[in-house]
């Protein structure tokens, strides 16, 4: 049979298996333009044989359920974030054909940042932007694209420049960017408009297939329900009211002149990733000691001080040693906006069990490098816990009597050996020498691998040793019955 038949494209599911709705029809209102655009996209996918490669990103809005209709890969993105999700898909699956489908509430308001930057990066995806000038799904509220004078649920007197500003012209905005290769606006008001939309849909998808770059088609689409009009009047409204404001034209077409680009596959090994991030220097873990692991308690630490005193690094190094001992560890920093001089603290958990929460609210061990930290956290120490006070800077004594307190001139010790910034390493050396929680020797092995400035490795090891030595000479190791030192 050679008769050509126009029928439901195969890129639609045979049955729309939608919860609680009709199983054969879409959920769109009569006369809604979404169905037209869906058909044109599905037809294009059919004709280009792209069903197995296509990932359709549904937005939030009326077209949120597009995944019930398209028999392709589907992801439904958070409101406005379809281009960001599409970026992730395309960047990890270079061979995929990413179709990001969004309405005007989604794209032109809630996800403005995402669409602008996806376009500006020239992500190799195709964006179909359905513009009906309102938030249709939620009941016809004003959108950034609503026309001046347009009465909506939220502009009952009509949109005014003074109150809501001018309608935003997304196709024009996108076309000003350098990266996009094809930017057009079309409409669905009449057959000519629909067939032009069909042409642009194909062109945009074909450009993606050829690796040309970012393509964007804005489609003026009727919303008879939201506009409170019948289908016929809706189409007249597009022609009479919308088109004068949103002209249908091709704003940019660089498809012919733009070189194709196929992103190379990158599949780094774990080691390469760690190296690239400067995290790969910890080396082989220490030999596993099952007895040690079985008896290891869950320990919560907080290291607090000025930014620049190295409390975050101290926490990270302790966590790194714990990790190399096969413990479960967590480290999270907390700091202000200042790179130097603000207050900072690090929470560290070491445990023989998976760490539930990395937040340390009641530390077993608190190290304070300055007065504000002691004021802030002394109260939080678990009863019977340990507080290490940097007595070079902090002159007051602990208020708590139900905890153990060590006063160590950490900054002075570091300064004496010529590297004031190494007070944090003095702290770790002193703590492990005192507590014997983990071997000081292991700490010395990790320190040069774990710090950022590798050329200072030896001095940092010295600082660890200086801290340990101070404890040996002034305090001795922690006794079984911990005494409160004063």
């Amino acid at each position, binding site marked *: *049979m*050679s*008769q*050509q*038949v*126009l*029928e*439901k*494209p195969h890129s*639609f599911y045979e049955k729309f298996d939608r919860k609680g709705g*009709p199983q*054969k*029809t*879409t959920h*769109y*209102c*009569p*006369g*809604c*333009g*979404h*169905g*037209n655009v*869906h*058909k*044109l996209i*599905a037809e294009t996918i059919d004709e280009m044989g792209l069903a197995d490669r296509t990932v359709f990103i549904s937005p939030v809005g009326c077209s949120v359920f597009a995944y019930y*209709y398209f028999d392709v890969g589907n992801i439904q993105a958070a409101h406005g974030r379809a281009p960001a999700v599409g970026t992730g898909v395309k960047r990890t699956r270079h061979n995929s054909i990413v179709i990001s489908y969004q309405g005007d509430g989604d794209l032109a308001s809630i996800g403005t940042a995402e669409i602008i930057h996806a376009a500006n990066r020239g992500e190799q995806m195709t964006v179909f932007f359905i513009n009906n000038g309102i938030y249709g799904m939620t009941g016809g509220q004003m959108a950034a694209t609503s026309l001046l004078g347009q009465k909506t649920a939220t502009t009952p007197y009509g949109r005014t420049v003074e109150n809501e500003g001018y309608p935003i012209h997304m196709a024009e905005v996108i076309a000003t960017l350098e990266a996009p290769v094809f930017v057009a606006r079309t409409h669905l008001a*009449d*057959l000519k408009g*629909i*067939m032009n939309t*069909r042409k642009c849909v194909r062109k945009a998808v074909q450009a993606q297939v050829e690796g040309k770059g970012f393509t964007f088609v804005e489609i003026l689409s009727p919303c*008879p329900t939201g506009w409170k009009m019948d*289908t*016929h009047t809706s*189409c007249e409204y597009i022609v009479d009211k919308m088109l004068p404001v949103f002209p249908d034209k091709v704003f940019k077409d660089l498809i012919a002149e733009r070189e194709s680009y196929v992103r190379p596959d990158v599949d780094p090994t774990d080691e390469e990733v760690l190296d690239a991030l400067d995290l790969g220097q910890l080396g082989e873990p220490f030999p596993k000691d099952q007895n040690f692991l079985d008896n290891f308690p869950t320990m919560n630490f907080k290291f607090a001080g000025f930014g620049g005193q190295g409390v975050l690094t101290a926490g990270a190094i302790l966590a790194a040693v714990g990790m190399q001992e096969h413990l479960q560890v967590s480290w999270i920093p907390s700091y202000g906006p200042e790179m130097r001089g603000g207050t900072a603290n690090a929470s560290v958990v070491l445990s023989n069990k998976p760490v539930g929460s990395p937040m340390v609210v009641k530390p077993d061990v608190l190290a304070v490098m300055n007065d504000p930290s002691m004021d802030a956290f002394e109260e939080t120490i678990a009863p019977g816990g340990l507080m290490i006070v940097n007595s070079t800077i902090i002159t007051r004594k602990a208020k708590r009597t139900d905890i153990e307190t060590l006063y160590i001139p950490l900054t002075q010790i570091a300064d004496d050996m010529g590297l004031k910034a190494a007070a944090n390493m003095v702290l770790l050396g002193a703590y492990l020498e005192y507590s014997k929680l983990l071997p000081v020797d292991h700490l010395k092995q990790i320190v040069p691998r774990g710090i950022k400035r590798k050329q200072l490795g030896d001095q940092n090891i010295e600082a660890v040793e200086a801290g340990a030595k101070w404890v040996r000479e002034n305090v001795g190791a922690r006794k079984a019955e911990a005494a409160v030192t004063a």
Partner: protein
Amino acid sequence: MSEPTTPSVEIVPHLCKACQRCIEVCKPGVIETNLERAFNELGYQWVEYKGDGCTGCGACFYACPEPGAVIVFKKGTAA
């Protein structure tokens, strides 16, 4: 031997939402709505092909927002 087939359009009654966009774009005017008829299961009075005069242009197919409601058999030859 093959012989030319007559173009025609089929509107699937239970998929039609009666938006009537097909009627607007149909140049020969061979699609109509019948307000005497009962409603389909969606609650709409579906449109239908008058029975002859279709040129198989496909306008109604593209104007129809519903994926499967309109099927157009273009002019061609059948085996």
